[in-house]
C-alpha cells in the first residue's frame, strides 16, 4: 500500500536556504527517515541527513518535523493525516552545515567541560560493590542517546545564542545528576558545579526537554529538580529561614547568599534590618523606616537567577518543610500588591532624598 505524499524539506547551508517541495512515495509502516532515504535514492541524491542505527538507539537522525524536535527514525508516517504536508527542518539551536545536518559541536564542548567520573581511590577494579536500587537512579540518565533534542528545544539557548557560553543544557545537567547520584563517585561538588559552571539557575523548569526525550528520561523531575532542590536546600534552607524568624534581625545566622554581600556593607546597612525587603513586613521598626522614606543606601540582595518554577514557586521538597507548598520567594509575610509607599522605586526625574 503506497501513496504519494507532500514533503517540504529545508535545503541550504550556512549562507541560507529555503523549504523545497517534494512529492514522494510513502508505504505502510514507514517512518520519516525512510522517506528521506527514498528521496536520496531518487530526487535528491545529495540531500544531507545524519543517521546510523535507524532504531532509536544512536540519536543521530535528530530533526524538526512540523516544527517539533524528533528523531526521524522514530516518527511514524501514520501519525500524520493523509493529506498533511510534512515539513522537515534542521535543529534550530545549532548552526546549519548543510540541509538537515547541523553543527552540534556545542554539545561536545560542554561534555568536555563537565568533570569526569572520579573513581574511589581505595577500591580496586573488581571490588566495586553497589546495590541495584542505588545504581538505578544514575542508570536512568545513562539511557541518554545524545540525540540533543533536549538541547535544541531548550528555550534558554534556542533563540538566545548569547546564553550558550554560560549554559550547558539539559543533557549535561543530567550528566551532572548522574555523577552526583553515582554511589561510588569520589567528587562531592557536582551540584555546586552545576549551579556555578553549568548555568543550572537559567533553567526555569518548563519541562520541554522531558517532553521531547525519545528515551523518556524524566530530565526535569528526576534530574534537574533534585539538583536544584539541593542547591536550594543550602541557599534557602527552611531551618535557616525559621531561624531568621526566631532570632532578632541582625543576629540572623546568614546564608551563603547574603554573607557574600555583607562584606561590602555600606553605611546605611548599619541600621538593623535594612537588608530586608521592608515592603510588606510587619516588623514595626522596618515599617517605620519604610514610612520615613526609602533608604537608597540599604544593601539589597545581589540579583540571582530565581530558583523558582514557571509559576514563581520554589521547588522545595515538601518532606523537609512545615507546609504542603513551597514558600514564597519574597518571604511568606509579604502580600501583594504592595502598598505604593513601600515600593523601592525612584522616579528618574526625582532627586535622591538621602
Amino acid at each position, binding site marked *: 500500500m503506497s501513496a504519494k505524499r507532500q514533503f517540504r524539506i529545508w535545503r541550504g547551508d550556512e549562507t541560507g536556504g529555503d523549504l523545497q517541495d517534494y512529492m514522494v512515495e510513502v508505504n505502510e*509502516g*514507514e517512518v520519516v527517515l525512510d522517506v528521506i532515504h527514498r528521496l536520496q535514492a531518487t530526487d535528491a541524491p545529495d540531500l544531507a541527513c*545524519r543517521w546510523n542505527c535507524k532504531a532509536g538507539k*544512536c540519536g543521530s537522525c535528530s530533526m524538526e518535523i512540523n516544527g517539533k524536535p524528533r528523531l526521524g527514525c522514530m516518527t511514524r508516517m501514520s501519525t500524520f493525516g493523509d493529506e498533511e504536508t510534512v515539513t522537515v527542518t534542521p535543529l534550530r539551536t545549532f548552526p546549519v552545515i548543510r540541509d538537515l545536518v547541523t553543527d552540534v559541536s556545542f554539545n*561536545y564542548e560542554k*561534555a568536555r567541560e563537565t568533570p569526569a567520573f572520579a573513581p574511589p581511590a581505595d577500591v580496586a*577494579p573488581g571490588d566495586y560493590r553497589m546495590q541495584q536500587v542505588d545504581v538505578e537512579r544514575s542508570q536512568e540518565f545513562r539511557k541518554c542517546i545524545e540525540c540533543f533534542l533536549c538541547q535544541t528545544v531548550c528555550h534558554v539557548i534556542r533563540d538566545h545564542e548569547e546564553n550558550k557560553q554560560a549554559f550547558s543544557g539539559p543533557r549535561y545537567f543530567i550528566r551532572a545528576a548522574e555523577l552526583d547520584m553515582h554511589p561510588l563517585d569520589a567528587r562531592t561538588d557536582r551540584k555546586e558545579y552545576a549551579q556555578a559552571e553549568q548555568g543550572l539557575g537559567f533553567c526555569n523548569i518548563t519541562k520541554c526537554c522531558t517532553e521531547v526525550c525519545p*528515551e523518556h528520561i524524566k530530565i526535569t523531575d528526576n534530574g534537574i529538580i533534585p539538583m536544584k532542590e539541593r542547591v536550594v536546600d543550602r541557599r534557602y534552607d527552611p531551618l535557616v529561614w525559621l531561624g531568621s524568624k526566631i532570632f532578632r534581625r541582625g543576629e540572623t545566622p546568614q546564608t551563603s547568599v547574603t554573607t557574600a554581600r555583607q562584606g561590602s556593607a555600606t553605611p546605611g546597612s548599619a541600621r538593623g534590618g535594612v537588608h530586608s525587603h521592608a515592603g510588606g513586613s510587619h516588623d514595626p521598626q522596618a515599617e517605620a523606616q519604610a514610612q520615613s522614606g526609602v533608604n537608597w543606601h540599604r544593601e539589597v540582595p545581589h540579583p540571582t537567577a530565581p530558583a523558582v518554577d514557571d509559576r514563581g514557586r520554589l521547588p522545595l521538597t515538601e518532606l523537609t518543610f512545615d507546609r504542603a507548598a513551597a514558600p514564597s520567594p519574597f518571604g511568606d509575610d509579604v502580600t501583594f500588591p504592595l502598598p505604593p509607599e513601600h515600593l523601592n522605586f525612584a522616579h528618574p526625574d526625582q532627586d535622591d532624598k538621602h
Partner: protein
Amino acid sequence: MTTTTRIERHHYDVVVIGAGGAGLRAAIEARLAGKKTAIISKSLFGKAHTVMAEGGAAAAMGNVNSRDNWQVHFRDTMRGGKFLNNFRMAELHAKESPQRIWELETYGALFDRTKDGKISQRNFGGHEYPRLAHVGDRTGLELIRTLQQKIVSLQQEDQREFGSYDARIKVFSETTITELLLDGDRVAGAFGYYRESGEFILFEAPAVVLATGGVGRSYKVTSNSWEYTGDGHALALRAGATLINMEFLQFHPTGMVWPPSVKGILVTESVRGDGGVLKNSDGKRFMFDYVPDVFRKQYAETEEEADRWYTDPDNNRRPPELLPRDEVARAINSEVKAGRGSPAGGVFLDIASRRSSEEIRRRLPSMYHQFKELADVDITAEPMEVGPTCHYVMGGVEVDPDSGAAFGHVRGLFAAGEVSGGMHGSNRLGGNSLSDLLVFGKRAGGHAASYADGLAARPKVAVDAVEAAVETALAPLQRDTGENPYTLQQDLQAVMGDLVGIIRREGELADALVRLAELRERVAKVSAFGGRRYNPGWHLALDLRNMLVVSECTAKAALERQESRGGHTREDYPAMEPKWRQVNLVCSLDGDNVRLTRKPLPKMRPELIGLFDRAELGKYLTDEELADFDALVADAGEADNR
C-alpha cells in the same frame, strides 16, 4: 589539478580508524602508553554501531554461578565457533575479559547488580553459565558511553597538563579514511576526507589500528548501519594484508520483519533467555524439532523440562530456543520455507503469554520501548514477528592473536573487533563481541604504541600516493555519465542477499561472482551529483568500492568451502566436514583481483584440547586428530600413574 587541492596534514603516533568499542579501547591504551593518538570516526563521536549491542558482554566472572571460569568460557567459544576459532584468541579472550569489564567500572560504567552488589550476569545462547554483564538491554550504549567518557576524562587530564584537550588524543568525527599510505611494506599514514566540508585530510603516522566493524550494508536485510561498508577489510586488503573466514556471516535469527521500515532490526536473544519461545503459524513451539546431534545432550527434550530450566538451571537442560544463533536462524528459515511462517515471512516470538506484563517491561525495557514506538506493537500483549537478518561478519583481517598485528606483507597495521578475523571461528556467541572489543582493542592499541616506539625512523608518505588518492576520491564527482550510487548499492545488496545469503548453493555462488564482476565495471564508472560538502551520494560512491571487494571475498570463499559450518550453510553440502575444519580460507589482493588460498589452522595446545571430552571432539576432528588426542590422554594418564 591535484596540485591545487588543499590537504590538511596531521602527525600522530597512532591513528585508530573507527570509534566503536574496539577503536575507543585501542585509543585509550595508546594514549595511556603516552602516544599521540587520533581517533577517526565516520559518524559523530559516540554514535558507533556498538550502541546496538543489547544483550551484554560475556566474561567469566562467576558472579552468578561460581562454577564459571575461563576454561568453561573458552570451551563455549570454541564450541560455538565449531572449532574453527583461532584457539589462542579464544583463550586470551576468555582469560582477560573479566579484567576488561571490571576496568570499565573504574571508568564509571554502571552495570546491573546481583543481590550482593556485584555485576549481575545473564544467560545467553551458547553460554553454559550466566555470563553476560549487562545494563538492562542497552549494554552496548553503556559500553560506548563509558569509553567515550573515559576519553573525555583523559582529555581533561591533558588540558590540565598541556592546556589543550586535544594535546594527546583527538577525535576526528565525521571523517572517512579512503586509503592507507605505505612506505615500502610499512604503514606511513592514512588519507581521507571530512564528511562535513569534503576537505581532504592526511594523517602521517607509523601505526594504524583498524576498528571499522563489519560489512552488513552489502545485504538487503541487515541490522547494520550505513557505516558498515567493510572499509577496514578493504583498506587492509589494499595495503597488502590478508582476510580470513570471509565466508562466515552471522545472520541473527530474530530480526524484526514487520513493519517493513524496521525490517532487520534485532530482537535481542535475552527475550528468549528470559522465557520467550518461537512458534510457527500453527502455534507449535518448533525448536524442539531442530536440535542437532552435537547439542542433543545439553538441551531439553520436552517443554516441561525446558520451562523448569528458567528457575532451576542446575537440574534441567536448556530450552532449545537458546541454541547457537545459526541453528535458530536455520530452523526459522526451514519453517518459513515449509509454509508455516508468519504473514510477513518470519515466525512468531512469544513472550507475552509467558511472563507478566510488569516483568517483561522491567527485564526488557528498551525492547518494549522499541516495539511500542517503532511498530506500535505491545510485546507484553502480542507476539513479535521475527526472521533472520544479516548481523555480524566473523571473517576479517588475519592477525597475530597476541598483538593484533595484521599478517600478509604489511607492517604497522593492527586490527581489533569485528574487522579482525579468527576469534569467533565460524560462528560468534552472543555477548562475545563486546568483550572481544575490549580485550583485543586494548591489545591492538598497546602493541601499536610499542611498535611506534620501536621504529628507528618514521616511514615517509609518498607524494604521488597522495595525489593518486585525491584523484580516486574526486573521480565520482567529476563524472556525470555514470550510474547513481544508490542504484548500484541496491543491485549489490540484491546479489548478496539473494545469492550469497543464509542458505547457499554452488550455482548461485558462481552466478554471484559473475554479477559482482559486472558490478565492478559499473562501480568503476559511478558518478555522484552535487558538491563536496556533506554529500551522501558522493560518500556512498566512495564506499561502494570497499563493499564490492569485500563481497567478492565472501562469495569466493563461500564457493570454495564445500561444507556447512556455523555461519556458512551450503544446501549442496549440508554436513560439517572434519577435513574442512583444518583449513582457513585466506583472501588477498593480487593487483585488483581477489586471490584465495588455503592455510592450515594452528594446532591447539595440549592443555587446551584436554578441556574437552573425546565424545565431543569426535564430532569436529578427523580420525588422525583424534588419534593424536588419544595419545595425548594416554601420555597424561601415564604421567599421573608415575
